[in-house]
């Protein structure tokens, strides 16, 4: 003879005295239908919810398309002494918003770290992305927004920027200069993966700013 406690613990609904219980059943109809209804609702929600979420979050993981090399002028247009401003289109089809300004000079002393024949400096400030301007008299890049200043090589000399100005790869073909991909540089001007403005690439700070999964 099972005790009252045993009956309450029994897996059979009949033993537990549930309404609508059947001999040998472990689940009542009500419990089963509740589960089916919840499950069906969950599946239906997931069917539109998961694709919508993926659609919204997808751009984070989409691979950055490699833009074709852009012709920015003849090798005679640039020298090693000063920068020449050049406007390129980084995103086609969106008008002025897809254009950006570069400052280009000849790389008179290519090194192992900087093998590019020309130095193409991005005007995107490494603080919060405002457009910097090259001031010849100071041989510096100055940001109008929060007062970031950079030296001739694009290294930070003052203000809030967290790393040097980004650069673009360059190649020379048939006497023409072409500009390729954007890349970021650390405080030693070594190439690192492309980052947004404001993200550290030096020391312990860089742990807090993971690079994109796909670049």
């Amino acid at each position, binding site marked *: 003879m099972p005790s009252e406690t045993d009956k309450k613990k029994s897996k059979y609904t009949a033993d537990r005295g549930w309404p609508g219980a059947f001999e040998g059943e472990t689940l009542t109809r009500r419990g089963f239908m509740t589960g089916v209804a919840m499950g069906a609702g969950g599946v239906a929600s997931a069917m539109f919810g998961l694709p919508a979420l993926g659609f919204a979050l997808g751009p984070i993981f*989409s691979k950055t398309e490699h833009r074709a090399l852009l012709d920015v002028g003849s090798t005679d247009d640039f020298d090693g002494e000063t920068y020449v401003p050049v406007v390129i289109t980084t*995103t086609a*089809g*969106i*008008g002025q918003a897809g254009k950006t300004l570069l400052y280009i000079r000849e790389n008179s002393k290519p090194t192992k770290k900087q093998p590019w024949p020309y130095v193409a400096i991005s005007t995107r400030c490494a603080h*919060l992305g405002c457009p910097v301007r090259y001031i010849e008299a100071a041989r510096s890049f100055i940001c109008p927004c929060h007062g970031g200043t950079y030296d001739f090589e694009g290294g930070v000399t003052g203000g809030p920027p967290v790393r040097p100005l980004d650069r673009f790869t360059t190649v020379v073909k048939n006497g023409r200069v072409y500009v390729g991909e954007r890349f970021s540089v650390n405080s030693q001007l070594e190439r690192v993966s*492309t980052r*947004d403005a404001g993200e550290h690439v030096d020391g312990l700070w860089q742990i807090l700013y*993971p690079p994109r999964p796909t670049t």
Partner: protein
Amino acid sequence: MPSKPKLPNPLNIKTSKLPKPPLPPALKRTPKPVETGDDVTLGQAAAGGGTSVVAWIDERTAGSGFLRGFMFRKVPKGTNWWYTLGSATMFAFVSQAVTGIFLAMFYDPNPTQAYESMRHVNNEVFLGEFVHGMHKWGATVMTVLLFVHMARTFVFGAYKYPRELNWVVGVILLMMTMVMGFTGYLLPFDQRSFWATVVGVNLNGTGPIVGPYLADFLRGGSEFGATTLSRFYAVHMMLVPGIIGALIGAHLYLVAKLGTSAPPWMKPKDVAGDEKQI
């Protein structure tokens, strides 16, 4: 005869039935009975029309009880003009919604067309500059009113038990209003809009660990691209207004359910009757 078990009542709230909310005299009058029958003149039928329509709707919704409790609820003594700031903020939101809908009729969220469409609204559409200006300045008005409302709630201690959840809902409404301001700022697509958004997105990017992903999510890619503007437009005019509307509903429900608090300078002896302990 066994006595009823006494329920714990820490605040000593009177559990007897509260009196019905006070109604303005105009609503207390019993409406004249609607004339029916074969000899009813057109005038009598028209006079009874309003009562019939209201009665028809009320019989099917029981809405009069809800409206009576919601519109004519009791408020504590000492309630003053500072208590109107929440309504003022909500009115500013309604104004933003209405002007925003009319602006959307002319606006083109395409990077090459957006600026031109707003130039058209401002220079050529009848009252276009005025409606655009109401939306632009109304955004500031709504934000300022929201902060003053929040300050009133804080200074009066109206966030305390049992109204903590309404404070939480209000803070989410504050954040949603900030999102509206951020996403709406890009839409005119002039130089100020564009560079402010570049800076704003990069500010999000400076957050540790999640920042870079958040910035990519906002832009819809690694660069300010073809879909960034339409992304901001969709968030600004569909996603966040829906969330704000739902949260305002929850906020108002809690206000009506819990009642408003008396100003801190009112002493319990000054507050009459049932509000004494609330």
